[in-house]
């Protein structure tokens, strides 16, 4: 079974700051997904990354994939309160999920 680790598990950051969430996985895969989940809500697809070196950006979020290092990053630029949520990565055809990173942006 493919193992997926995210860190940090909890992240508290001030508005306006930058930070990066990491997603490491144990075996080769050519696809990686990022999702957002607000408390008590469903999931929202953020990014699909399909190849080594892929980079996608949407607003203050940018995701990248390094398949050789088996690593994806989700970079947050100039955080705002609305970004507070739990962020999950998932890997492979069977969508192995990471444990999630709970992000709180403090004014």
């Amino acid at each position, binding site marked *: *079974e493919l193992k997926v680790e995210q860190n940090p598990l909890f992240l508290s950051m001030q508005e306006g700051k930058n930070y990066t969430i990491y997603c490491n996985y144990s075996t080769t895969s050519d*696809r990686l*997904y990022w*999702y957002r*989940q607000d408390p008590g*809500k*469903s*999931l*929202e*697809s953020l990014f*699909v990354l*399909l190849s080594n070196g892929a980079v996608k950006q949407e607003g203050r979020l940018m995701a990248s994939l390094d398949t050789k290092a088996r690593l994806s990053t989700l970079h947050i630029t100039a955080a705002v309160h609305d970004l507070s949520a739990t962020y*999950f990565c*998932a890997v492979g*055809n*069977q*969508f*192995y*999920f*990471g*444990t*999630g990173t709970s992000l709180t942006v403090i004014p």
Partner: protein
Amino acid sequence: EPEVTQTPSHQVTQMGQEVILRCVPISNHLYFYWYRQILGQKVEFLVSFYNNEISEKSEIFDDQFSVERPDGSNFTLKIRSTKLEDSAMYFCASSPTGGAVREQFFGPGTRLTVL
């Protein structure tokens, strides 16, 4: 804006009973998925479905589980004999494409409580 819907929002059942969770995917979507999330824990993939067949399934998706698209609009998840550990939030998702691009649209979820 089209959205994925799920019914019921909350289902309570006794251990050993059968339950059917219903989903109506977005109408022109081709790929369908079920996930579950035990309270406070990570999301777990159950199954993906395309062209009236299961395309991927996880180890969780054993003989107690089945999926069906009975009428071209609904997509159902059946649990034949529920266990206490099946208590979770179940999310349905659909996608207009599979293969290389899989942006998924999720329903609001069904909370299943097994007593």
